[in-house]
């Protein structure tokens, strides 16, 4: 899979560590990334709602789960941002939550190259709908 050929680039994913975890199977990684991305879109939408309604418990839980998934795929930045979002839920800090939420969306954009472009288009449409839906 050509997407994964450059381990030296500082992309969103720490390739050597994730490959070690899943036994070097590239097609399995591709499958996992697709599951992750679908899962992310759903959680992103849940997070948006939770932030709008000030539901800190949900923010904390959803961000926690996202943190775990990101960590397992060695998506280091997404993992860290999920963590700060989780903390803001814990501390009931809505400003911090909003900031982390936006950053999460930006970092997610960087996964673009990990999917075939037609699939990504579909995901991007969904993300735009979530972001613009007030």
């Amino acid at each position, binding site marked *: 899979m050509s997407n994964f050929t450059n381990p030296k680039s500082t992309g969103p994913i720490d390739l050597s560590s994730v490959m070690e975890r899943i036994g070097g199977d590239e097609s399995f990684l591709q499958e996992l990334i697709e599951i992750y991305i679908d899962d992310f879109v759903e959680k992103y939408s849940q997070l948006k709602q939770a932030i709008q309604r000030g539901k800190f418990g949900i923010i904390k839980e959803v961000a*926690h*789960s996202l943190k775990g998934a990101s960590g397992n795929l060695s998506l280091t930045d997404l993992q860290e941002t999920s963590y700060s979002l989780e903390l803001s839920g814990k501390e009931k800090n809505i400003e911090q939550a909003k900031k982390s939420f936006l950053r999460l969306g930006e970092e997610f954009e960087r996964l673009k190259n990990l999917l075939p472009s037609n699939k990504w288009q579909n995901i991007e449409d969904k993300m735009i709908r979530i972001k613009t839906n007030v």
Partner: protein
Amino acid sequence: MEKKLPRTRPIKVLIAEDNAVSAKILQGNIKDWGYDVVLAMDGKQAWQALQDEEIGLAVLDWMMPEINGIELCKKIRQINYQNENHEYTYIILLTARDEQKDLIKGFSAGADDYITKPFNSLELKARLKTGKRLIDLQRQLQEQANRDGLTGLWNRKRMYRILEKEINRTQRISHPLAIIMIDIDNFKRINDTHGHQSGDAVLQAVSSILKKRVRSYDEICRYGGDELLIILPNCNLGETKKIAERLRQAVSYQKVNTENAVLDVTISLGGVSTGNKRTDLKPETLISTSDEALLEAKYKGRNCIVVKKLKECM
């Protein structure tokens, strides 16, 4: 029904993880290492799996919807301690790095080990192996505690447990239950004439013939000395007679090779079957009735069967 499980049966690993990506990675890894995997996407599903299947190792996510990892730990330990026949479940908690300070909570809830997410696969493999070692050891001990060393049949302690369970079942579903007591004819003479090692060989040979000739769900136990006892669930009087006769013939037609001699061995059998409706049935009642029947068979001249219907049911 008691399962006769070979020692090598693979250990089932339950993965309880609500996140699809993490679950998938865990499943892929753990399958590759030769375990059977059962996947649960939340605590409730996990709890169901733990009750339906024999789970040796459980990898539980700390934070899960419905029932979280800690609550699950407590529930698992409850069934482990309430039911001594239930296999011990070795629990590994999956925690996030910042939950590490809460680990004491996990251990006091009954977890055996933990691993932080994102996990390192070699570390997880090693931790599972530690758990497997414990489960294997436990299975061996359980096996040794329940089997008779010479014949490999269930021992007397186990026999009573099976009997009690079958009696309970019989009363619940109104099926007849039968037992057959077996005694090797002139066993003392075999021992005196050919030596105790020959006696042992005869016991082993008879046990192995019986094992092949009972129904798959019958249980054979060594009652003591040269007396064996077979527990036959859902077996009426006629069927009990048929099986007893089949066993008698099987033993009498086969010669037993011992180190010193080739012996013609025969057995006497005393059986009893309950009726369909029974209340207040005790193992002792069944055993003493089959004992009486066995004694009658001996008096009739050995190498024969006597099967009775339990008195209170006539």
